[in-house]
């Protein structure tokens, strides 16, 4: 799980152009949207692409995305349970 979390943080930093942010800066349980990393609607859409591209997981829509993208920990757990890659 720790490996999944670290890899996921690196992937998110790269995919969302989060310059000056390192994996150790991201709290596993902090909200990704609103506060925390302060991601926006385009970032949410890019995370949906990331899930499919890197893990073969197809999320239906942003409602499903909202539930999965609550925090890094929730995302990583979902990936471990549903990944096809």
């Amino acid at each position, binding site marked *: 799980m720790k490996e999944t979390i670290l890899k996921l943080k690196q992937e998110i930093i790269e995919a969302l152009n989060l310059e000056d942010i390192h994996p150790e800066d991201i709290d596993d349980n902090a909200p990704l949207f609103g506060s925390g990393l302060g991601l926006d*609607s385009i970032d949410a*859409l890019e995370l949906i692409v990331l899930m499919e591209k890197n893990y073969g997981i197809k999320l239906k829509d942003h409602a499903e995305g909202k539930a999965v993208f609550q925090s890094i920990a929730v995302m990583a757990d979902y990936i471990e349970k549903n990944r096809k890659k």
Partner: protein
Amino acid sequence: MGYIMIVKIADNIISPLGMTSEENYREVKKGRTALKVYKDRWGLPEPFTASLFQGDTIENAFSSFHSHAQYTEFEKAAILSIHQALQQTDVNPSSDRVQFILSTTKGNISLLDDNPYKFPEERVLLGSSAKNIAGFFHNPNQPIVISNACISGVCAQITAMRCLQNGSCDIAIVTGADIQSRFIVSGFQSFQALSPLPCKPFDRDRCGLNLGEAAATVIYSNSAPQDSEERWMPVSGAIRNDANHISGPSRTGEGSYRALRSILKGQDVNSIAFVNSHGTSTAYNDEMESIAITRAGLQDIPVNSLKGYYGHTMGAAGILESVISMHALDDSTILGTKGFENAGVSHPLHISSQNEQTDKTAFIKLLSGFGGCNASMFFKKGIIL
């Protein structure tokens, strides 16, 4: 500088619903739509609903010109529309007092994907494409292209008004066109902005927009013909930004409201027959417009959207929808919003669901686009004295 009356002297719409404005208006009045589902089109994995030209419609219509030069489908649609509009006037398009203004978001973008006729790479450039379009009519002036996302069609008309006001031209040929492609559809799919079914503007069950393609032209002049006929005049126009987000609409409808506020100055709200909105049928856009329209004090004025007939025709939308609106009022009609059944926005608006009669002769056109931009125009019909 004294204010000069700008008047419309001709118009045309080329769309999946017809090749003239009259044909288009007749079909829309009957409630027709070209929206249908496309599966496996352009090799896209997800099906989508759109309003597209069938088969070789544009190609066949253009072949009557017996042109030696090669033109792309986008350019042919624009040329056809301009030609048809010019037929209604005695304007000489090769005059240097005529300015071509083109509104488009992606022009010849499909050439990046598929270029069977081997157009040079430069042809993807909008200015180059516009030069070919204006060149068909032997116009010597550098054409102006507006690429301001989905509000381009209104911006192009505002640009025309300004050119005509300052006297840098006497006739402005304003054309909006966009042709759908794998590039555009896939992009909107990545935004999850598309509805799988025909769109439902302002409806509580709306779930996204449909894309469309069309070419539409309006020709404006700064010298009104010497007769007692009633003519359409673009009275005022404004472009404003939300200053909020590059793709998400403003929660306060900021730019939309400010554009409306600007064009309403000095106008009698009671003279307005309807507000033709952007009404794309996305959750956020229609909600935002309901807020802006209410903030501007227009909540009791009939509001409609034409996206249920045409889909979102992007660069063509601002011109196509203005022209249909003018033809509607020529027919004393407020068109119904196809797809609308039950109100689904937080601010109650008077959404026109069926065609209605009116004796008013002014309307507002409202649009919004990516980049946080919004535009509005006030149109009035009257006799130029």
